[in-house]
């Protein structure tokens, strides 16, 4: 066991973990941040997407100890002062979910997409950039609409 210290959603945290402990296990099992989901556990589905030092990554494929000193944002860290993040609000407004399991990863990936591709996203760009996130209800139509609207709303907010 070794100690890892990092900043999660603005708070300094430390935990005792094994070499093999994954970032998603640190978040869910040590820090009780269960909004980050484990879908496939094989780096395909993107349900476990979080921001690691500002970049969207699959937390089921990152070792916890590799995050020493890093800054992590999870779905729980997006809202500010009780107000949903514009991307979260857009997902609700456009009913961009069916079962909701993939939603946290979709939203984290969408916010990462805006930071890389800007606020004016056409449908094709959104669909291409969403390649690492799988919705097995296949509800992509409203997810794409929500991301376009959320991206535009992020510019205004």
């Amino acid at each position, binding site marked *: 066991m*070794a100690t890892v210290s990092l900043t999660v959603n603005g708070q300094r945290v430390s935990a005792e973990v*094994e*070499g*093999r402990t*994954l970032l998603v296990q640190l978040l869910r099992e040590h820090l009780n941040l269960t909004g980050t989901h484990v879908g496939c*556990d*094989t*780096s395909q589905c*993107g349900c476990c*997407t979080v921001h*690691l030092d500002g*970049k*969207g*990554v*699959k937390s089921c*494929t*990152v*070792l916890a*100890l*590799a995050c*020493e000193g890093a800054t992590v944002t999870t779905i729980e860290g997006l809202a500010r002062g009780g107000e949903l993040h514009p991307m979260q609000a857009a997902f609700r407004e456009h009913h961009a979910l069916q079962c909701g399991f993939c939603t946290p990863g979709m939203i984290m*990936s969408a916010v*990462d*997409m805006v930071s*890389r591709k800007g606020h004016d996203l056409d449908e094709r760009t959104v669909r291409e*950039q969403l*390649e*690492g*996130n799988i919705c097995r209800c296949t509800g992509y139509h409203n997810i794409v609409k929500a991301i376009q609207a959320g991206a535009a709303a992020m510019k205004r907010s």
Partner: protein
Amino acid sequence: MYDFSYHRPVSLAAAAAIAARDGYKLLAGGMSLIPALKLRLARYSGLVDLGALGGLRGIAREGNAIVIGALTLHAEVAASPEVARAIPALAALAGGIGDPLVRNRGTIGGSIANADPAADYPAGVLGLGATVRTNQREIAADDFFTGLFTTALQPSEIITAVRFPIPQAAAYCKHRQPASRFALAGVFVAQTAAGARVAVTGAGPSAFRLAEAEAALGKRFEASALDGIDISPRALNSDIHASAEYRARCVQVMARRAVLKACEDRAGGR
């Protein structure tokens, strides 16, 4: 995943010393190694995480070449104006690896050290006649990929950078397996001062060159030069996704498309 001891050295020398221990393995972005460990396809006593070696990250123009540090992310290569200006085909290749979240974590050094038979970078490294720099020596691309998941690297040898000579024209085209999105066959073509180079990934045990196609393109770098060149399915991979014959046909089509694209980009002044 079986447990292992984890090390995160802050110097290249320390990393090499720890990696030399029995049963130890180097870890870069982990986009292939961590899934392999989770599936128990691999087991190591220790991992040496190179993540703290910031000096191995970055992109620079050196004379008539682009040098990319081993820990440079796929997303960084894809978004680099320097790479896009000098070797747009390489930027496009990096931008087509995996998905955006994988490209935010995966590294060029990790990809070529792993030498997955369907990975994209090996085709670019071989197709551009790159040189792999390590903490011990320089290895020509032609000597680097030696077989299935096998390279010329020694156990404690660490890739520090890859040097890509800038070609006159180049392009990479792949046909993706529809579910995994890995290349069923990918072909990188380059027109260089020393002749044409054609490198294939996804179709064989490791990336390989097509001598006959290179000779034809060396005389005339245009798609029709490939007319009548047969790709033998012998020695190509056959699995549930595609037969060797199908892959041979894919190689032919991807090679043609890549030459067309390289010629278009050259004509467009890119």
